[in-house]
C-alpha cells in the first residue's frame, strides 16, 4: 500500500446541490497534499467523506487502506481530523483540552509529547487560559496539537489557516513541514492560492469537480498563453481598456497590477503598449511574466467545461 488516500469517482449530493461530482484523487504516503478551492467548492464535503463522517452517494473512498464506508472504525482511530470550524471546548483550558483529547484517544499527553512539543511550547505560557479566549492563530495551534496527540498516520486539516493572520499562517505551514518530516501524511485544504506552492502536490477543486492535480510547478506548466503584468495610473480604466482589446483572452486585477493574457501566442508587449497609449492612461508599464499558481487557477476556471486537465 503506497497511497494514504484513494478516492474514485466520488459523488455527493445534498437535495438539489451537487457538492462533489465524480471526484478521483490519490494521495501518496508521506505527502503534503493541498486541496485548493474557493468557498463552496466542496472541500469540506470531501474531508467529511474521508474522515468517515459522511457517506458518498457514488464511488468509493479508501483511507489508509480501509474502506471509508465499511471499515470506518479502523480509519477513525488512525486519523487526526481538524474541522474547518474551531471545534474545541471553549470552556476548557488549553491544558484540559489537550488532556481530554489524549484520553479519548486512549493515550496520554506525555506519551506523544515529542510530536507536539514544537507547537505546544508556544502555547505553554497560556496553558491555564480558556480555549475560547485564545487568538485565532493560537486556537489553530491548539487544535492541531489535539488532532496530533494520538500520533495519527494521516492528518486531515480542513481550512486550518482561514481567518488566521499572515504570521501565524506562515508558522502553521512551517509546522506542517516538520510534521511531514516525521512521516505523517497531511491532507490540507485552503482557499489561499499562495499556500498551494508550499504543498508537494495540489488539487484544484471548483464546484465539486477537480480541475487539475499536479505539483505546484507542474500546475503552472499547464498555463500556456503569454502573460503580462500591466500597470498604469488608473487601474480601473486600465481594466476596461484592456478588456475591450480584441485579442484579450483574460484580464483580471492582481494586487496593484493587472494580469493580461493574449489569444495570440506571439503577442508582444510593444503591441499592447501601442494600443494602451492611444488612451489617456499614463505611466504605463508592461512586463512579460511567468505564470503563478493563481494565474493557472484563474485560467483553469475559465477554460474548464467539465473536462479534466491532468
Amino acid at each position: 500500500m503506497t497511497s494514504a488516500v484513494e478516492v474514485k469517482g466520488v459523488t455527493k449530493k445534498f437535495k438539489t446541490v451537487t457538492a462533489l461530482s465524480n471526484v478521483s484523487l490519490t494521495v501518496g504516503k508521506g505527502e503534503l497534499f493541498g486541496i485548493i478551492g474557493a468557498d463552496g467548492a466542496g472541500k469540506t464535503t470531501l474531508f467529511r467523506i474521508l474522515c468517515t463522517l459522511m457517506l458518498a452517494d457514488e464511488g468509493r473512498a479508501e483511507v489508509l487502506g480501509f474502506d471509508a464506508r465499511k471499515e470506518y472504525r479502523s480509519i477513525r482511530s488512525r486519523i487526526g481530523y481538524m474541522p474547518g470550524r474551531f471545534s474545541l471546548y471553549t470552556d476548557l483550558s488549553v491544558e484540559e483540552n489537550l488532556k481530554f483529547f489524549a484520553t479519548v484517544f486512549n493515550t496520554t499527553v506525555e506519551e506523544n509529547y515529542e510530536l507536539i512539543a514544537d507547537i505546544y511550547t508556544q502555547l505553554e505560557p497560556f496553558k491555564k487560559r480558556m480555549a475560547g479566549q485564545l487568538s485565532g492563530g493560537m486556537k489553530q495551534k491548539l487544535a492541531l496539537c489535539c488532532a496530533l496527540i494520538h500520533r495519527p498516520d494521516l492528518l486531515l486539516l480542513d481550512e486550518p489557516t482561514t481567518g488566521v493572520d499572515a504570521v501565524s499562517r506562515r508558522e502553521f505551514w512551517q509546522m506542517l513541514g516538520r510534521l511531514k518530516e516525521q512521516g505523517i501524511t497531511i491532507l490540507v485544504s485552503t482557499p489561499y492560492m499562495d499556500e498551494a506552492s508550499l504543498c508537494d502536490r495540489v488539487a484544484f477543486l471548483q464546484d465539486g469537480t477537480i480541475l487539475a492535480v499536479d505539483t505546484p510547478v507542474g500546475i503552472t506548466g499547464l498555463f500556456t498563453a503569454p502573460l503580462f503584468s500591466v500597470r498604469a495610473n488608473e487601474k480601473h480604466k486600465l481594466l476596461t481598456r484592456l478588456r475591450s482589446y480584441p485579442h484579450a483572452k483574460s484580464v483580471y486585477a492582481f494586487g496593484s497590477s493587472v494580469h493580461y493574457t493574449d489569444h495570440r501566442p506571439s503577442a508582444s508587449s510593444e503591441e499592447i503598449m501601442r494600443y494602451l497609449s492611444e488612451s489617456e492612461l499614463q505611466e504605463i508599464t508592461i512586463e512579460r511574466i511567468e505564470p503563478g499558481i493563481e494565474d493557472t487557477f484563474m485560467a483553469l476556471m475559465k477554460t474548464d467545461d467539465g473536462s479534466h486537465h491532468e
Partner: protein
Amino acid sequence: MKEWSSFVGFVVKEFYHIFRDRRTAAILFGMPVIQLLLFGYAIRNEIQEVKIGIADLSRDAVSQAITDKILSSGTFVLVKNPQSHSEIQSAFRSGAMSEAVIFEPASDREIQREGSMDIQVITDGSDPNVSRIITGYTASVIRDYLSESATTVDEPKGVVPVPLMMFNPGLKSVYLFVPGLMALILMLVSALMTSISITREKESGTMEVLLVSSLKPIQIIVGKVVPYFLLSFINVVSILVIASLVFGVPCRGSVLLLMAESLLFIMTALSLGMFISTITSSQQVAMMISLGGLLLPTILLSGFIFPVASMPLPLQVISNVIPAKWYLIIVRAIMLKGAGFAVLWQETLVLAVMTVVLIGASLRNFSERLE
C-alpha cells in the same frame, strides 16, 4: 482498561462544563431549592385572611355566637358591617370583601320555634376556587355551632357526614406540591439538561471531533448521562430533606423504595433527553421541545396541580404517556400513604417500559455520522 479511562475523562469533562457555566450550575442547584420554597411558602391552596363582611340584622344571641365563631377561626377577617345590599355589591366590586354573611332579623326566635334559620352567604364568584372553599368553610363553622348547641333544641335530623381527610388531615398543599415538584425538577434537570448538552456538542462542531475519536457512541451517550444522573439524585435527596425539615412532610413508606423509584424516574427522564437530542441538532430546538413538550405536560397533565380524573377523556388518555403522572402516583403513595412495592408494581413497570423503549429509540437514532 484504557477504554475505561477515556470514559472517565469524558465524564470529568462534562463536570467541567456544568460547573463552569454559571447558568447551568444555577439551574441545577438553585432551582430545586427556590422552587420548593416558592411552592412551600408562597403558592398555597389554603385559604387565609378571607375578608368578610357580616350584616347582622337580627342582633341576638344566636347571630352573635355564630359571628364570634366565624371570626375566631382565624381564617376570616372582619372588614365591615354592610348596611345595605348596594354596599355589599360595591365592596365585592372593589375587591374590599370576598364574602358576606347576612343574618335575617330575629334569627333566635326562628331557631327556637322552627329549629331552623336562614343565613345568607354571598361570595365573589369571579374566583370560583376560593369561593367554593370559603363557602364550605363557613358552612362547616355554622354546622359546628348548631351541633354544639343541639342540646338545647332537638337533635339535628337527617344524615350528617363527618369527613376525615386521611393522610393529610390538615389538607396542607405542600404535601401535594412536594411530589409534583420532584417530578418537575427531575424532568427539567435530567431531560432538558441532557438534551441541551448533547445538542451543544453538535452545534459547536465538537461532536464531529468526538465521532472521529476512539470513543464509541455508547460511551459518548453514557458519559453525557452519568453526571446528570448523579446531580439529579442529589436533587432528590435535597428536596426530601428540605421537605421534611422545613415543611414537615413525612415519608411514611420505605425511603429506600422511594429512592429506587426516583432513580428509575431519573433514568426515564434522561432517556427522554437523550431521545430528544438524537432527533434535533440545535440547542434551541432541544430547549423548545423539552420546555413545551415535557415541562408543560408535566405541570398540567400529570395530576401535579389538576387532578387527572377531572380532565376530559382525550387529555386523560394523553396523560398516560407522561412519565411524571406515574411517578407522582408512586411518590404520593410512598410518602403520604406508606404504600409498598406490592401496590406500585404496575406504575413502576410503566416507567421501566418507557425507559427501555426510549433508550432503544435513542440508540437506534444516534448517528455515527453527520446528517
